[in-house]
């Protein structure tokens, strides 16, 4: 561990990696809470894959890849909603159809870019190669996402909890949905270099689910989720650096380990206390 801290002090690339992954841990933890509470985990996976063609097109046109990513991300979200509302195809199938299509188109576009290493890094992340510009972009996106959630917290809460009541009193729930999709694409693109497209969904749903098992208040859940995301990022990066493991995968596995810890030991929801309480009750009545 001391060796890792020394290395962080010493190497700029490691500092950038650490800052970027912590930011990603925080923002995906925050947005993830709303994603899982709205029952949109699969949608999170879909949008994260759907940014691929956008990223590819942005590279071709030489524009900032956030722009292309947000466009293809939102188009896919709209397409899923359209199929869902205008046919008997179920929501999860509509999601599956649209995101695999976007992802496939993305793979073909990326091969036109002629460098296969790019594809590999986009898919799996390479946090140790984060450039200063990437780090700043992640920080800006992170601040934007956090400020948005802070400003619209009340509206996000009520539209996630009771969409019918929110609509009844005049909240634009559809707009809130698409706004959340925009935030989701931004978080996804910000996470590209840390964990990569394929594993972004883990950072969205695993820390949030861990937090979900530990509290009965949304504000606390968001805090715990962001903390789990951060811890996963730091420990994951440490393990990845020390044992030369793939950074994204390591971060995700740390997040998973935290989830199972909560799954077993959570005071209210955990497997362990539940079975202890059950047995106590059983022996009390027998």
């Amino acid at each position, binding site marked *: 561990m001391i060796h890792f801290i020394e290395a962080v002090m010493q190497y700029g690339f490691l500092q950038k990696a650490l800052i970027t992954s912590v930011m990603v841990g925080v923002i995906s933890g925050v947005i993830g809470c709303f994603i899982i*509470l709205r029952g949109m985990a699969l949608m999170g996976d879909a949008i994260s894959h759907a940014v691929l063609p956008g990223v590819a097109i942005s590279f071709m046109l030489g524009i900032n890849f956030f722009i292309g990513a947000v466009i293809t991300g939102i188009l896919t979200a709209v397409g899923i909603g359209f199929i869902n509302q205008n046919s008997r195809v179920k929501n999860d199938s509509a999601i599956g159809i649209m995101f695999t299509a976007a992802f496939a188109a993305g793979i073909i576009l990326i091969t036109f870019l002629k460098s296969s290493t790019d594809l590999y890094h986009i898919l799996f992340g390479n946090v140790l190669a984060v450039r200063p510009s990437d780090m700043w972009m992640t920080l800006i996106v992170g601040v934007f996402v956090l400020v948005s959630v802070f*400003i619209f917290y*009340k*509206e996000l*809460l*009520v539209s*996630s*909890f*009771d969409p*019918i*009541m929110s*609509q*009844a*009193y*005049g909240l634009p729930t559809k707009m809130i949905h698409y706004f959340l999709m925009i935030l989701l694409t931004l978080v996804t693109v910000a996470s590209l270099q840390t964990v990569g497209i394929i594993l972004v969904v883990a950072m969205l749903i695993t820390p949030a689910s861990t937090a*979900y098992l530990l*509290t*009965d*208040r*949304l504000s*606390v*859940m968001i805090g715990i989720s962001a903390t789990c995301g951060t811890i996963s990022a730091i420990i994951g990066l440490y393990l990845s650096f020390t044992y030369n493991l793939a950074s994204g995968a390591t971060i995700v596995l740390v997040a998973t380990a935290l989830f199972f810890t909560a799954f077993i030991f959570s005071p209210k929801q955990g497997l362990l206390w539940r079975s202890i309480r059950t047995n106590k009750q059983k022996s009390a009545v027998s």
Partner: protein
Amino acid sequence: MNNAIVVSNLHVSYYGKEVLQNIGFTISEGKSVGIIGPNGAGKSTLLKALLNLIPKDKGEITILGSELKEVRKRIAYVPQRSTIDWDFPITVKDTVLIGTYPTIGLLRRPGRLEKELALKCLEKVDMTEFQNRQIGELSGGQQQRVFLARALAQQADLFLLDEPFVGIDATSEEMIVKILKELRDVGKTIIVVHHDLNKAEKYFDELLLLNKELIAKGSVKEVFTPKTIASAYGGQLSFLDEVMAK
């Protein structure tokens, strides 16, 4: 007396299948009205159409003397209990606090005043001691009381409740009925989707009997005639016998 709701010539359909046909009625302010009818009669649909939660094909709706969008904040809507995610990480207190959201507007947070109001409403439904519980830990009746408290916190003039008495205990039902009567007595308008004919006459001033079309509307006596009930509940004979026996 002013009219709380005026509906004329209302048609609503889902994907071409007509659910409500040519509905027209007027409800005066300060009345409590039960919407009754068999399953699939379009009772909840009517409530949702009033709030434009489902688009209408045709028809005019005037609420509290204006267009809906002018008066949304003066309406409190309590959805069916089955539409709520009871595992949501929210406490009883915070659920009631949501009732203050419509009036405090964007960018502002509920402050001391709103929190006091929420607690007062919780007290009204006798749920103060449960204020820090997660909502899923309550019984069905307690949950419904919490949602009524939330509606109270909206300080609305018109209350729309969708099947509030389904799956709840007698004490909660009595309490909710009592509070709704108190609201009516201070001039609020109450509209309740209700499926139990037996209690309808005790609970409401007026009834709307619905089965895709409006079968009858008026005082309980006017609506509860063998003829109207038969035309609404046609095939459902056991139900019919029950009513006839009374």
